[in-house]
């Protein structure tokens, strides 16, 4: 077994660990919902503060920092009984990340270059960044509820990478022999990882918002008009959503991550243009990859504008994140696999 094979084994191990983590995150979310459903279990010091930040949030973090002379009181997130499932989820996900990291390192050593030069490797690095971002975020805020979506997406992506995109580790063709491979591709992959997390936050924001609106509708006295078409999200099946922070907090979380992702994407496009100038003799040539990178940039730019436009912030802006992420995925899959262009580096 050489280094390349060992790397693959580790990535398979990471995928397995993530899969276990995903299941545990899902169980945790279901349990959380049960607990939220039983008011008796909601033992917190101050109900008004708890309502503002059920699972922590901006103030909670601020409060935790000012531990000596609290400016704000925080409702400790774990006053509720210990969440065993989420502990398992976090542990296995962290273990998976360790496997994943070592796997990438060995892959780089086996190929004698940075481990991001074909689709299998882009996926492996992008998912690594997504999980790492998620785990770093959990140190900063309790966003473990994002685990189900983020780790779930990562399991699917890694599964695809190992089965469909996989190629053996080897060197790269002359067009890729540039330090821009290190910079441009790494930043692009990192941005994709970040945008995956912000996608998860925005998707949850929309679901949560729909549930709240649906419940508010059915709680109204004149609910019989709406009863004809009851919102499915307001039903008990989706009560896991009750455990999530308010849509406004999810929106803020998504925005922060998207903002970083957008800046990195801007850098990606620029670095790509500089590299194209070096390698192909033009900085911009409307190659399919360039077209879609442009589309991604424009959609996220539209999102940033939507947030500050009357009547477009909140729900509507969140849809832009969903559309934006769809274009990111299209840029990665459709363009690499089906469109002919200069970015034909899938290795497939």
């Amino acid at each position: 077994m050489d280094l390349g094979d060992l790397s693959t084994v580790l990535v398979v191990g990471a995928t397995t660990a993530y899969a276990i983590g995903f299941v545990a995150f899902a169980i945790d979310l279901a349990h959380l919902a049960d607990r939220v459903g039983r008011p008796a279990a909601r033992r917190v010091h101050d109900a008004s503060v708890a309502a503002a930040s059920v699972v922590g949030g901006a103030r909670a973090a601020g409060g935790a920092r000012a531990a000596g002379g609290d400016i704000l009181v925080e409702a400790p997130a774990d006053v509720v009984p210990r969440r065993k499932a989420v502990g398992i989820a976090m542990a296995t996900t962290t273990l998976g990340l360790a496997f994943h990291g070592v796997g990438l390192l060995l892959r780089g050593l086996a190929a004698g270059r940075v481990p991001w030069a074909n689709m299998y490797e882009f996926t492996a690095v992008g998912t690594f960044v997504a999980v790492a971002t998620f785990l770093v975020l959990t140190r900063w805020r309790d966003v473990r509820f994002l685990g189900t979506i983020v780790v779930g997406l990562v399991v699917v992506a890694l599964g695809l990478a190992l089965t469909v995109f996989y190629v053996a580790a080897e060197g790269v063709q002359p067009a890729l022999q540039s330090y821009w491979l290190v910079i441009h591709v790494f930043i692009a992959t990192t941005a994709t990882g970040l945008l995956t997390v912000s996608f998860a936050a925005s998707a949850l924001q929309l679901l949560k918002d729909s549930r709240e609106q649906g419940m508010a509708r059915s709680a109204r006295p004149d609910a019989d008009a709406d009863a004809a078409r009851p919102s499915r999200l307001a039903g008990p099946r989706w009560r896991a959503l009750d455990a999530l922070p308010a849509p406004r907090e999810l929106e803020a979380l998504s925005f922060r991550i998207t903002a970083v992702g957008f800046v990195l994407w801007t850098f990606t496009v620029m670095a790509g243009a500089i590299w194209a100038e070096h390698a192909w003799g033009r900085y911009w040539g409307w190659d399919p990859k360039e077209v879609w990178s442009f589309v991604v940039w424009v959609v996220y730019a539209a999102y940033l504008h939507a947030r500050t436009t009357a009547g477009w912030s909140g729900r509507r802006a969140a849809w832009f994140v969903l559309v934006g992420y769809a274009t990111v995925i299209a840029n990665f899959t459709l363009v690499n696999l089906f469109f002919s262009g200069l970015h034909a580096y899938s290795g497939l």
Partner: protein
Amino acid sequence: MPQDRVDEMALEEATTPTLPQLGAVGALRWVWRQLTSMRVALMLLMLLAVVAVPGSVLPQRPQDPADVATYLADNPGLGVWLDRLGLFDVYASVWFSAVYLLLFVSLIGCIVPRIALHGRALRARPPRAPRRFDRFGVRDQAVVEAPATEVVAVATRALAGPLRALPRFRVDTGLEDSGALTLSAERGYLRESGNIVFHLALVGLLVAIATGQMLHYRGQAIVVEGRGFANAVTDYDTFVGGTAFAPGSLVPFTVGLDRFTAEFTAEARPVDFAAEVTVREPGGQARPAVIRVNHPLSVGGVKVYLQGNGYAPDVVVRDAAGEVAFAGAVPFLPQDAVYTSRGVIKVPDVSTGDQIGIVGFLLPTAVVTPAGAASVHPQPDAPLLVLTVWRGDLGLDTGVPQNVYELDVTGMEQVVGADGTPTTIVVEPGQTVDLPGGLGTLTWQGTPRFVALDLRHDPALGAILGFALAVLAGLTVSLFTPRRRIWLRLTENDGRTVVDSAALARGDDLGLAGELERVMDAIRARPGEDRSGDGPR
């Protein structure tokens, strides 16, 4: 923070729900308001994303004219309509241009008033302290022994930071009717500055790109080992100049190709390409240089890129009379990863009989099987030429320019064997073979390599890079600069000073509480402090 939201939205022009008194001026003003509104900008952005997509789905003329031709041939009915709508050159089409130009007009219409607004904001004082602090989420109180004036000095220092030229907070003091001293501080003006820089840099970027398009030129040249070319319009195989390009501006340098080396793995994956050249600039010494993929050569304001390579078999063709009718290296264009290369040798200058056209393939590492010959590796380990011969009129005298890599067979007929199938000749290096039909002989003398060089001059590159960096810097500053306001109210009581404070941020701001804490800590750190008023509310 509702009022902050409103601040942000003040940027958006309110569109009047009732139609204005319609006159030409009124209508124009209404259109202008619409165009510069955020909502229309948003729609134009989404529209820009949508109209960019067809260019990645359909073949595009500037990138791949051959694919467009194939598409038109395959879809005769639909293709014509797509062509009329400009879908084979999306990024130069009227509708694509209309969207981005409208977007830029909207951008300018939006950003210019904001510059004026921001200029005023930069000179304005921070907003006065609100009467009541209890509506703010982040607030604190301290009671200190120091007199109020001293506290103000300490707080101002803590808020403004060490840099006088670029204070962290802008601080203003006031005196209320009750006798209480107030202090208002605001930071985050750079946010809007960054925003304006970002948008102006985008305009600059567009202008720089357009300028580059007008002044640029690019040309392609195929150069065989041992030969060279001069930077002159006539020496290029293809040449495109911008509308404002003057042919006299070409610097007459020459580039000679001394050697080209290519390295491949056993699986035919390319590892390295290097073109060793000699460059002569006017009035300068000849100097050697190496051009690699990703490492263009800079000479005379031009960048020279290595875009392709292949083999150019050096052949001598003698006609039926034994006279040399053609001698030279003929580039054969690689068709696949193992460099199965196709080429045409046109022999018009025969001393007797028909003109000759020779078409065929060069196989760098040929493996001959009963099914035919094929190349298995791009290196010339066992090269073979497999050719068929045409005779007749090459059509070179008609004056219509011809593609040197294609044979126009309208006036020609293929030389066939007794069974009626085309006669194929197979040549090894150094061999001389008879051409079928008694047309003469062909000698393969050697196999020099050729490189396809792409030369490009764009004087706007520096400006484009500069504006792009400004875009990135402006964007980063505008997204990550926090906007915060801090107010202090100081009331003297019993010889002690009670300091009430409140902080407000735009949007969700994790660092707000920490910022207030920092200022209050500085105030409390004065001698004679009293922590009795310290603590959470």
